[in-house]
């Protein structure tokens, strides 16, 4: 017989067991990797003070600002462009693939497969693969960001359509409206706020990622950082990082404002 008391006792034991298990996995893996958690943690303050001393921008690093900001703006533009194009592709594909607006279940499965394929290849891998065909150029970075964003956005947009648009869709279908009328008059207006919210999030994310991709593709702010870093001009590298942080925070504040207005 399951009484409340022994149900609760069992639950208690399960929780304890789970904690022990997680602890065990941690110990085992740090033993296998010869990773010493404690000395790692102790080293963190030292690492930060090293960073603070070496990466601190000086009066001298101000010289670098114009070229840093020029590249930074370029990188932000790249991120925005790739996200916007990705969003347009993703919304079309998501409409074709969602359970409520989509085609046959075969089409839905294919769309899901494609989305998951693009999403699950890491960005860095995309960049490396594309480097073969497109060499070190802005376009390589653009395409790498685009492909990964498409994967994420298709999945997100399909879920939004299924969650938010199915009821209004039904209502318009019942009036005798045709498929494209339903999409334009019900589905798109209904999901627009969530859509924009996701696009903004993706832009923020892609600005950060574009930096990383730039190191590989030799373009944009990532490239600038890489050069300063490798030529030991740490103060300029620090200035670059600071600029990136500022832009990312500014973008986040801006997109939160936009969200407040549209939601």
């Amino acid at each position, binding site marked *: 017989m399951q009484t409340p008391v022994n149900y609760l006792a069992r639950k208690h034991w399960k929780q304890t067991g789970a904690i022990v298990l997680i602890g065990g996995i941690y110990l085992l893996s740090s033993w296998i990797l010869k990773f010493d958690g404690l000395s790692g943690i102790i080293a963190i303050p030292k690492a930060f003070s090293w960073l603070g001393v070496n990466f601190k921008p000086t009066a001298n690093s101000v010289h670098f600002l114009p070229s840093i900001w020029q590249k930074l703006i370029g990188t932000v533009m790249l991120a925005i462009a790739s996200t916007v194009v990705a969003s347009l592709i993703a919304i079309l594909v998501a409409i074709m693939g969602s359970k409520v607006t989509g085609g046959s279940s075969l089409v839905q499965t294919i769309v899901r497969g494609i989305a998951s394929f693009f999403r699950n290849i890491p960005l860095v891998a995309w960049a490396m693969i594309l480097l073969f065909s497109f060499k070190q150029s802005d376009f390589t970075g653009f395409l790498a960001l685009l492909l990964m964003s498409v994967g994420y956005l298709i999945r997100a947009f399909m879920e939004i359509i299924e969650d938010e648009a199915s009821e209004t869709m*039904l*209502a318009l*279908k019942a*009036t005798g*409206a045709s498929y494209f009328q339903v999409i334009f*008059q019900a589905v798109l207006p209904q999901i627009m706020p969530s859509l924009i919210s996701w696009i903004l999030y993706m832009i923020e994310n892609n600005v950060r990622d574009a930096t990383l991709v730039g190191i590989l593709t030799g373009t944009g702010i990532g490239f600038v950082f890489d050069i300063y870093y490798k030529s030991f001009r740490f103060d300029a590298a620090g200035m670059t990082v600071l600029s990136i942080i500022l832009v990312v925070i500014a973008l986040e504040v801006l997109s939160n404002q936009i969200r407040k207005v549209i939601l």
Partner: protein
Amino acid sequence: MLEVKHLEKSYQKDKPALTDITFSVDPGTFVAIIGPSGAGKTTILRSLNQLIKDDGGQILLDGGDLRTANKTQLRGYRRQIGMVFQNYNLVERLTVIENVLHGRLGYKSTLAGMFGRYTEEEKQEAMTLLEKVGLEEFALRRCSELSGGQKQRVGIARSLIQHPKVILCDEPIASLDPASSRTVMQLLKDLTTEFNIICIANLHQIGLAKDYADKIIGIRQGKMVFNEDADALSEEILKTLYDQNVTEELD
């Protein structure tokens, strides 16, 4: 006139959701469909405009069979059948008048409908209908700002602008407070008479069904157990319908 003959539907094999549903309704009649949850009321209503594909029978609107209609013909039938939902199913982001005008989409060319190009007469009529449901002041408000009762009246205006022969209402008042419920029921009853249309509403409130409907259809486990004038609904029948004493609810 709407005639439903031997309508059948099962979602799973050997588990019929509807068996041999047969009834007919004349214009100007308000019909309430009552019955326990899961009895098949929604299935009946959605079969009537073929949002659900049933398995057999006939659905005749002024003699024409909806069930055998092709895509274009079905669109033609659907625009003559308005539908009102429990959750209103409006595009909340759009204004009241835009939602009302959605009822015209079935009459428009694909392009004009996609981009919401409505004629002056259509806009004028939308305003007249909003007046009729008491929302003319709200025409340019977003639907998300309205109360439940107001949203439902927008839904009703949206179905009226279709110039419907039939309005189907699936639990139109299940999300409303008692006062708004009565407003909406009275509105549906008045419109039924004024426009000489057929109004079919799934209802949970037997009391309201008796007060407002002309005819009542009782459904239990997918079968019709009652189809009479509202006055003829007795305690006896309600007992068999709900398998328990529901008379308290009538008071």
